[in-house]
């Protein structure tokens, strides 16, 4: 067991750190449009310096980084409070899925613009009737003379209004069981049949969109992984989503907790025994998230496939972040209901943590069934 970084990992981190010190553009400008252009530019900067598509093989313009290097990257980005990139989903899911399941033509066509953020990607999986039970989705794609005609609705997509391509899972065969009739498409968002509406959340912001498809068209060659294989392709994509996220989220938790401790000291509450217990518990949770994520990483590197540990850290993180933001409200005391610059937003936003990217109930099922081998309730 060795929790220090290897010389190569060390070198990777140092290179990244000093690069970030010189190039981190700092806070985003106000206004959604401006902020997004800012992220686009930032991603291009990263791409030019070879920091985009970290996990991608070098032949596709990536860096072929190890899982640990990816984790270090997330950690350092969080620590440096660097802005997010414009094309998150393209880099984390779109690229990997095309590389894993795409044709040579598709690789030629799609990968480069993902890296440079020329073309933004979004994800069309969830539907109003299909949240946890993804395989029950209803969006229909019917083939008529060489192209697919898509009708349906998707929700909880990010950046849909900026996106050129949508990773769309739709039902292409009504007559086979749930999981079997699905196909994975790349849908051009710039067309008649696609309408994007902002989806406002309880914070007031519209971080997500709804996509309404009314006879949208997709050429046959935009299928990824073959007709009827959509479930398999989607699942592997989702697995990519979580790898190494744990470490980044642990760092973010500790940064937020640090800000909260400043508040606590400013208010002269640092000797309050109850506040101290709550702060300590959150600190410990953040550390165990970091440590569980690292252990998962080691295991994944040995086995090659991401295990269910990701479910543990995601579940832990949502609990801890909700506890943190509730403590922040309690620290503000009688004035807590007043809308302030960011704690109010964080507090309300945190309610979704135990829902987005797998509800805590589903994560517990995964742990119970896949790790503990308890019987499925089916």
């Amino acid at each position: 067991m060795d929790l220090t970084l290897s010389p190569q990992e060390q070198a990777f981190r140092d290179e990244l750190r000093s690069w970030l010190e010189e190039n981190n553009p700092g806070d985003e400008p106000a206004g959604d449009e401006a902020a997004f252009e800012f992220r686009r530019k930032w991603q291009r900067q990263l791409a030019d310096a070879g920091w985009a598509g970290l996990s991608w093989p070098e032949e596709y313009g990536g860096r072929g980084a190890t899982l640990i290097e990816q984790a270090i990257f997330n950690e350092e980005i969080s620590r440096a409070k660097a802005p997010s990139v414009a094309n998150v989903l393209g880099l984390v899911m779109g690229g990997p899925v095309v590389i894993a399941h795409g044709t040579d033509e598709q690789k030629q066509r799609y990968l480069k613009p993902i890296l440079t953020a020329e073309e933004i990607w979004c994800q069309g999986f969830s539907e109003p009737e299909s949240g946890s039970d993804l395989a029950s989705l209803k969006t229909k794609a019917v083939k008529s003379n060489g192209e697919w005609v898509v009708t349906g609705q998707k929700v909880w997509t990010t950046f849909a209004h900026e996106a050129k391509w949508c990773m769309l899972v739709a039902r292409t065969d009504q007559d086979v069981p749930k999981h079997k009739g699905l196909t994975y498409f790349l849908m051009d968002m710039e067309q008649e049949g696609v309408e994007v509406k902002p989806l406002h959340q309880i914070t007031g912001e519209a971080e997500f969109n709804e996509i309404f498809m009314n006879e949208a068209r997709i050429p046959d060659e935009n299928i990824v992984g073959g007709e009827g294989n959509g479930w398999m392709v989607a699942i592997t994509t989702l697995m990519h989503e979580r790898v190494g996220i744990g470490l980044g989220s642990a760092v973010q938790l500790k940064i937020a907790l640090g800000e909260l401790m400043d508040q606590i000291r400013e208010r002269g509450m640092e000797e309050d025994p109850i506040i101290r217990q709550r702060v300590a518990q959150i600190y410990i949770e953040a550390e165990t998230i970091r440590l569980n994520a690292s252990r998962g990483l080691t295991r994944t590197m040995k086995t090659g496939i991401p295990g269910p540990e990701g479910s543990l850290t995601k579940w832990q993180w949502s609990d801890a972040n909700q506890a943190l933001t509730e403590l922040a409200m309690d620290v503000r005391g009688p004035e807590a209901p007043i809308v302030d610059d960011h704690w109010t937003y964080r507090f309300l936003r945190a309610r979704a943590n135990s829902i987005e990217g797998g509800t805590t109930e589903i994560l517990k099922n995964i742990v119970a069934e896949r790790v503990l081998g308890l019987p499925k309730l089916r």
Partner: protein
Amino acid sequence: MNFDYSDDQQAIKSTAREFLASRFKLEKVRELAEKGEYDDGLWGQIAELGWPGIFIDEGAGGQDLGVLELTILQEELGYACAPTPFFSNAAAGLLVKHAGSSEQQERLLPGVASGEARGTVGVVTNGSAPLVPDADSAAFVVLLDNGSASVVETAAAQPEKVETIDSTRRFFSVGAGDGEALEGDVEGAVQRIEVALAAELVGVCQRAMEMAVEYAKDRKQFDRPIGAYQGVSHRCAQMLLETESARAATLYAAWTADNEPESLPLASSMAKAYSADAGWRVTASSLQVHGGIGFTWEHDLHWFLKRARTDGALFGSARSHRDRVAELAGLARSAAAV
């Protein structure tokens, strides 16, 4: 012993439920909340029903009923999440009634009872009252400054709008100007206000629970209504436990206010502490049952979630009330207690 509403009280409850259901449909609540406004016409109707004076003597134009009847209305107003100045006005009325001189009562209570010269209440923390509901449209503000109460004219108080997470209620900050003191039983009045607030939280819990249960029956995932999974059904059972317990504690506190005042200090803190926790846990739990849709602005649950969190912070946190419970239950006062 009869731990249930009398027929009259039952009648008040069902009238309130019907009235609010027809006047404050969720679309209406949303319309007002998004504009950050109240509906004066509806307030007029509420005044016609005599609600603002429910606990005020007939002499002053009230109905001469008790805190219990007040909590019935408060619970229903919470259940509807109705944007109205009812609570702030009632709070001011309770202070004038219990702490005001007969002269002050004669001067101020009629306006409170008719709803035409409303009052409101602000709690002063280092020099100003940060969260005073409805101060702009009230005729007078009662300022509570540790233990003592004084009446200030709204004009003199210079209310400034404050944005809170609960946009179904309009809050203002008010500077602590000196006004005429209320010399009477301020503590007793504040404890009654706490009970009224607890009742509102009970109504919020009830509604959030009903929304969750209804959704859990309809929503299907994996070919089953989600309410068939214990992860959801046990959650809903917990909501019922906390809602019913908050209701029981609040009913009891209201009853002591009218019948056994010596028990009110302990009972009011129990009610406020329990209801504040329940209000937050039940609404947050209901959001979890709803999943994504419960997190959207277009769904109405968030009005209740935000109201619950805000009510919980007004007139003493759950923690401070628990500390008072410990005190009254027999543990000497703690210096460190917040």
